[in-house]
């Protein structure tokens, strides 16, 4: 057992920690698609908005970080609600391409708006969390915290979906939306609540990412495409599929980056994705229709 093995283990663990946040992102996107049947192309930009929000509230206004994160979560949940109410619901019945274009337009709008208000600089909240040493491995505390919070968020969501009436209704709408009215369920209300939850998850992801990374108007591009790939890999709309796929992809990224260069880790992940799409285009755990 040499140093080689311990560094590999470190990469695997970092992959696990990275996977947690990616899984959270995938969950939000999958939830909205699974229930409403619309892909929010601008999902990563919602996260960016949350990150800027936390930066502004904590660094500029000086409120405590935890409070800033809480406010941002609620704020992005509200943003999710607005995305559905203002942009999606008017075009729910129209061709899917229109819906994609609309959320695509929203992506550019949010990016441009951020550039206008904050400029192109990279902003950082300036938090320096310790790096923990465990048996010759260096694990960033920020990453550990992010993983823990992501897991907690996902557990809360799971409990909500499986234990409450509204949670059951949300899952039911995803399986058969047409008959929901005869059960007394107002599907419009379910869509709005789901959109708010999707936004809330994005807000949580923002809190976790802002601990580790800088925010700038194009930050969505660093994790947006990967999130989509993860969702598609796991079967678009399938919550469990996205969860599993997130950890698979993150392992490719970190372990691949360990053996070769960091960028190669991403390349390997993308190649794996392409291969999977050729072999099983509907996704690993394809959504039951």
């Amino acid at each position: 057992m040499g140093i080689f093995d311990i560094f590999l283990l470190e990469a695997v663990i970092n992959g696990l920690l990275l996977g947690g946040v990616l899984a959270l992102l995938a969950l939000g996107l999958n939830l909205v698609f699974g229930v409403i049947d619309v892909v929010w192309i601008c999902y990563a930009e919602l996260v960016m908005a949350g990150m800027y929000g936390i930066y502004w509230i904590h660094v500029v206004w000086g409120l405590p970080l935890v409070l800033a994160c809480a406010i941002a979560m609620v704020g992005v949940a509200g943003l999710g609600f607005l995305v559905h109410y203002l942009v999606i619901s008017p075009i729910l019945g129209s061709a899917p391409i229109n819906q994609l274009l609309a959320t695509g337009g929203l992506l550019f709008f949010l990016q441009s708006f951020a550039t206008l208000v904050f400029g192109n600089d990279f902003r950082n909240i300036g938090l320096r969390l310790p790096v923990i040493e465990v048996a010759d491995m260096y694990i960033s505390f920020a990453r550990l915290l992010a993983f823990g919070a992501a897991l907690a968020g996902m557990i809360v969501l799971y409990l909500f979906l499986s234990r409450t009436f509204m949670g059951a209704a949300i899952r039911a709408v995803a399986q058969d939306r047409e008959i929901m009215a005869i059960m007394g369920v107002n599907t419009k209300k379910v869509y709005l609540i789901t959109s708010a939850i999707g936004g809330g998850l994005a807000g949580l992801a923002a809190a976790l990412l802002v601990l580790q990374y800088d925010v700038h108007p194009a930050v969505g591009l660093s994790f947006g495409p990967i999130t989509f790939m993860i969702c598609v890999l796991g079967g678009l709309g399938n919550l469990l599929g996205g969860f599993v796929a997130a950890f698979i992809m993150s392992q490719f990224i970190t372990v691949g980056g360990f053996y070769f260069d960091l960028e190669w880790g991403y390349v390997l992940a993308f190649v794996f994705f392409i291969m999977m799409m050729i072999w099983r285009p509907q996704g690993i755990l394809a959504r039951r229709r």
Partner: protein
Amino acid sequence: MLELSNVSAGYGSFQALFDVSLEVRAGEVVAVIGPNGAGKTTLMRVISGLLPVRSGALTMEGRSLTEIAPHRVVETGIAHVPENRRLFPGMTVEENLKIGAFAPEARARFGERLAFVYELFPRMLERRNQLAGTLSGGEQQMCAIGRALMSGPSLLLMDEPSAGLAPVIVHQVFDLVRRIRGEGYTVLIVEQNIQQVLRLADRAYLLEVGAIKMSGSAAEFAESESLRKAYIGI
């Protein structure tokens, strides 16, 4: 209890129901029979609010159903068991039953309603944690009926409960409907299986090409020569 007066409805430019008038009184079992494409499912959808009425009146216990939002129709005491069951396949039996009790009034009584349904259908209690998609046809029908009962309705709309089921199971399903009737529910049942449903119903309507062609007691229907020739082939 339920009254339709000159109801017309359709899909886009296609009109499916023409001036349909019928009524269902409390405690009755009323059957609507007719061939494929007659508009029977459309009729069910109009009553439960899934399809809007274009003209005519639709009332339940005197309350007009055309003025309330579709998802609130269940609050008037109408529960719809859809054609082909339409259970949520990825959810368990118990979760399917839970959705049936989504409306606020039903939610308040969830525990007692669930106990009632399990008592009525012990097989559902056995399979409470089984995914609904893996149930047999007859069990799915049982679950779909149970789900409708969870909202505590007074009127049960049943859309072709025998569809796609083996003859032996069809017998069982109709026995279920008899039991439900015995519990005091009023039932409006749409069926293609004329022989079975006429044995069960008090009154019947014949729906052909979107219009009521005949109405009367089940006995009258069973004896009708023209009906026999056209639908039962005797």
